[in-house]
């Protein structure tokens, strides 16, 4: 029982919840860039939220199935063909031996998640199946999938055909508004610079990846030199290096940083960074940290309620 890779796409990787707890060793959490979309796809198949799945980025793969199993795709919207039939996201798809799943043009978002009603029969590295792309370990052979790869599967099963209720369908067409809390070194920047950052002046640079989302725009001047104290960087932290162009730390980011932090994308919105494409203008809104944590609890409870609604 395998999943054959006919075409790999730009960067198709095995991902799960990553390796939390290893920041102290320089190992970023990694895992799915959009954990929320991954969770939705898994819940459709009655899998655990972070069951290992395939993350598809910008250009999708072409995959051949050699056994009967169910899959579900959530996240970025691509033109999808199941053999010759156009199919959509957010529903359980039944695959049979010889069936081919083809990703075509990208309609919205940046990353889709293919959840499998099966287990990937590959070894864990540091407790996870996720591919750490930058450090080249984990996942399938420590890298993104290549044409000719055969992913071994076990315990393939058929899940009930069903789809996500309307309110759970993600849409990435609108201009993203991300919520932030003040950065540790926000005081090093003028009020004006802080407003500049969130007012739609910055767009996502094509040089963004799982390590960091780089922003292009008018360089942000630093008003006061920070007390340069290096400390841990978490996904969502927005640093401003000397060139004034902010970088948002992402899932495979450096674990320690020393540039002044102007703001942090709230934990509940970090998953949305996974759906940003180059050129997208960013709007940011500062909120209170306690509110940020409440939003995260609400998002978690939305996922908890979903199984009963399916």
């Amino acid at each position, binding site marked *: 029982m395998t999943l054959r890779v006919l075409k790999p796409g730009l960067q198709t990787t095995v991902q799960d919840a990553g390796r939390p707890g290893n*920041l102290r060793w*320089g190992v970023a959490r990694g895992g799915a860039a959009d954990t929320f979309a991954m969770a939705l796809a898994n819940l459709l198949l009655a899998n655990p939220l972070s069951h290992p799945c395939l993350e598809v980025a910008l250009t999708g793969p072409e995959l051949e199935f050699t056994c009967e199993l169910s899959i579900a795709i959530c996240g970025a919207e691509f033109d999808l063909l199941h053999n010759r039939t156009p199919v959509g996201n957010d529903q359980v798809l039944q695959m049979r031996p010889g069936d081919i799943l083809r990703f075509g043009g990208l309609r919205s978002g940046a990353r889709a998640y293919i959840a499998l009603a099966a287990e990937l029969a590959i070894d864990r590295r540091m407790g996870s199946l996720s591919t750490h792309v930058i450090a080249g370990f*984990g996942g399938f052979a420590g890298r993104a999938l290549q044409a000719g790869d055969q992913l071994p599967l076990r315990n393939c099963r058929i899940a009930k055909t069903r789809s996500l209720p309307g309110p759970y369908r993600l849409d990435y067409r609108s201009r993203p508004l991300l919520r932030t809390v003040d950065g540790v070194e926000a005081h090093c920047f003028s009020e004006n610079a802080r407003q500049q950052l969130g007012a739609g002046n910055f767009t996502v640079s094509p040089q963004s990846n799982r390590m960091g989302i780089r922003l292009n725009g008018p360089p942000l001047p630093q008003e006061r030199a920070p007390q340069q*104290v290096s400390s841990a960087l978490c996904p969502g932290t927005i640093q401003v290096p000397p060139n004034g162009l902010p970088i948002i730390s992402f899932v495979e980011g450096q*674990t*320690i940083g020393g540039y002044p932090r102007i703001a942090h994308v709230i934990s509940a919105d970090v998953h949305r960074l996974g759906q940003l494409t180059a050129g997208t203008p960013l709007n940011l809104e500062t909120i209170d940290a*306690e509110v940020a944590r409440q939003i995260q609890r609400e998002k978690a409870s939305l996922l908890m309620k979903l199984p009963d609604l399916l």
Partner: protein
Amino acid sequence: MPVAKRFEVLPNGDAAFDIRFSAEPSEQLSETIIALAEAIEKAPLDAVTELVPAYQCLTVCFDPLHLTETTGLLDALVSLTQTALIHPRSIAGTRNLIRIPVCYDEKFAPDLPALCAQSRLTASEVVALHTAPQYLVHMLGFTPGFLYLGGLDTALHCPRKARPALSVPPGSVGIGGQQTGIYPQATPGGWQIIGRTPMALFRPDQAQPFIARPLDRVKFVQISTQEFAQFDPHSEPEKMPLSALSTRGVQQ
């Protein structure tokens, strides 16, 4: 005399606190930070997900889903930090001296000539100064297995590159500012590259993926290009336990 008289606990985003000490980086401060991390780990604080030591700071990440409010966690961190400063604890585990082979041959050292010009030292003087100290591992971070080392000879301090290299080969040994270190992976890098180790610093396939822990010491040992070629990157690193006595008095 406590290592730091003052500390502050600051939010680092919405899911972490930084415990920052007002003291210069030192071995004693790193010992305090590691001991504090061990104490927090033992305390009944279920929401804590990560403990990340740095030179003058310990970051404590937490899961907001395991807390209804952060005041209790904040109070506990303040109290544990006060205790750690007043009653320094000994740290669990043996500290080791790890020998890391480095080839300083010109083909692995593109920036050595620039460093020589800047420091007015010959290449062999640079190598002698770089291989002399037992460097202290303050922490790991940046990328998997990267060691932050203390103890670089002041004669070797040099500015970072104005334009960072887009990619440095794994194992590259560099100097940037007052720091020296090894890039474990091919990553962009702003340090002056003066050599390369054939030893793998990150071994995700093994039960122990890292060659050193905080408070260990590291010594660079010069090898030839021939020894470099013959070296097995995954061979067990040469480790020697450090007795309490020999860990004192090493220059920072």
